[in-house]
């Protein structure tokens, strides 16, 4: 039991007074590169604003066109005209008009 306690004490003291490890000699260069790359990858605010404005305009146009087209729809007048013109009153599209009788 005593031996175990002594061993634990020795293990607990094993990382004390460690000599400091040297940081990577290229740390500074890498930090500067990271700062630069993050700055370059950032889109300027002006561009972000212009892009969002374009998207908003396109969305508005879509909404306006959609509402206009649904307001002007005439409920299938065109197709009625075609039916009348060609006398297509029979709605049975599978009928061939051929009979074995």
């Amino acid at each position, binding site marked *: 039991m005593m031996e175990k306690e002594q061993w634990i004490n020795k*293990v607990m003291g094993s990382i*004390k007074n460690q000599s400091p*490890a040297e940081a*990577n000699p290229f*740390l*500074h260069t890498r*930090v500067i590169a*990271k700062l630069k790359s993050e700055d370059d990858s950032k889109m300027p605010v002006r561009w972000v604003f212009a892009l969002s404005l374009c998207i908003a305009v396109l969305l508005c146009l879509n909404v306006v066109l959609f509402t206009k087209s649904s307001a002007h729809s005439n409920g299938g007048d065109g197709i009625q005209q075609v039916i009348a013109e060609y006398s297509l009153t029979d709605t049975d599209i599978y009928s061939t008009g051929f009979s074995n009788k």
Partner: protein
Amino acid sequence: MLDFKNDEIAFTAFMQAHQNRVFNAVLNMLQHVEDAEEITQDVFVDVYRSAENFRGDAAVTTWLYRIAMNKCIDQLRKKQRRQKWNSVTDFFSGKTFGDNEPHDFVHPGIIAEQKEKAALLYKAIDQLAVNQRMAYILSETENLPYKEIAEVMKVSVSAVESLLVRAKQNLRKILGGYYHGQ
């Protein structure tokens, strides 16, 4: 107030003065050289960006340790999530648990005759709760006084004391399990 954006020479000097301190604290926390290098870089990127926010209320080293420890906590949480995910994927792929466990870590600054014992201690530290681990590392390897540890961790000095007591108790318990007679 610090301002590195208009003074790159000052930033270089600051980095040279503090890089080893930050790297060693991060390395002791994360127990992984590549991760420690990456996090040290991130610490100084943050320092460069937020230097003007440093008001001088605490020592520069306290501020630096705080940034470094916050980054370490994020990294440890990421590692925990990755380990959980790996254990799930291992379960379905039929691998045995523990295949993804890291190899034994020993800080490069530890003398040869202590390496074996230090490896066991680091293994035990790896099992501590994050706040106990942080308090223990800052106290035992960085030799910070309780007051500074409290400032880094934003807790009271008595909280630091109790964290250290619990950390040491837990370490003794874990190490007891490693003892097989000498």
